[in-house]
């Protein structure tokens, strides 16, 4: 999976699936400075994931201020061939003044076991990286 640099930030395409529905988000930020993974409320609504009265509530505090998000879970999240089932995500407004549909945080990178190869601008599974090392 290719990483695109836009406005000097690394973006990828992510596929989200819930039941029969699936969407591809082209503007998802790779964000190792974020502990969690978040998607915009408008995109999640396309999958039928919407705020519900008793969702867990969170206040995310970071550089530049704080924001309100709702804790959710998604059935499938995939970065190219790397797919993770039943992954906890945050639903947020994600209105940062530039086009962004979501961000993948450190929780996703660890659970999916990915290598962020910024020299080649590629993301690939760590298992693939080990096979390459053994083969060389």
């Amino acid at each position, binding site marked *: 999976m290719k990483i695109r640099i836009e406005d000097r930030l690394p973006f990828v395409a992510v596929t989200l699936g819930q039941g029969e529905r699936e969407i591809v988000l082209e503007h998802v930020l790779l964000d190792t400075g974020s502990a969690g993974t978040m998607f915009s409320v408008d995109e999640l609504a396309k999958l039928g994931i919407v705020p519900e*009265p008793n969702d867990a509530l969170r206040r995310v505090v970071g550089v530049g201020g704080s924001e309100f998000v709702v804790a959710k879970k998604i059935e499938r999240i995939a970065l190219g061939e790397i797919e993770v089932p039943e992954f906890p995500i945050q639903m947020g407004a994600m209105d940062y003044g530039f086009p962004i549909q979501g961000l993948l945080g450190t929780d996703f990178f660890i659970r999916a076991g990915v290598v962020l190869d910024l020299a080649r601008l590629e993301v690939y599974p760590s298992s693939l990286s080990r096979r390459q090392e053994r083969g060389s």
Partner: protein
Amino acid sequence: MQWEEIRDRYPHQWLLTEAIAARSEKGERILEDLAVLETYPDGVAAMNGYSALHRRAPQRELYVLHTDRSNLKVTEVHWLGIRAA
């Protein structure tokens, strides 16, 4: 207003609220006093209302809440990534 009073006044509704008084304690945000800013027909509309006001006034502490909720627990987490400013 206290949450129980808001629940009585706005039953079974999605609200955009603002914390007038709140404190952080042991990883939780305790909302001591809330003001109701707007009501909405559904949760997505309420989140979009949040988004619009948060953009204009990022320093205000806003929450989207449904009054069927009895427990007002808000977990506070710290991330370093981009945040709306």
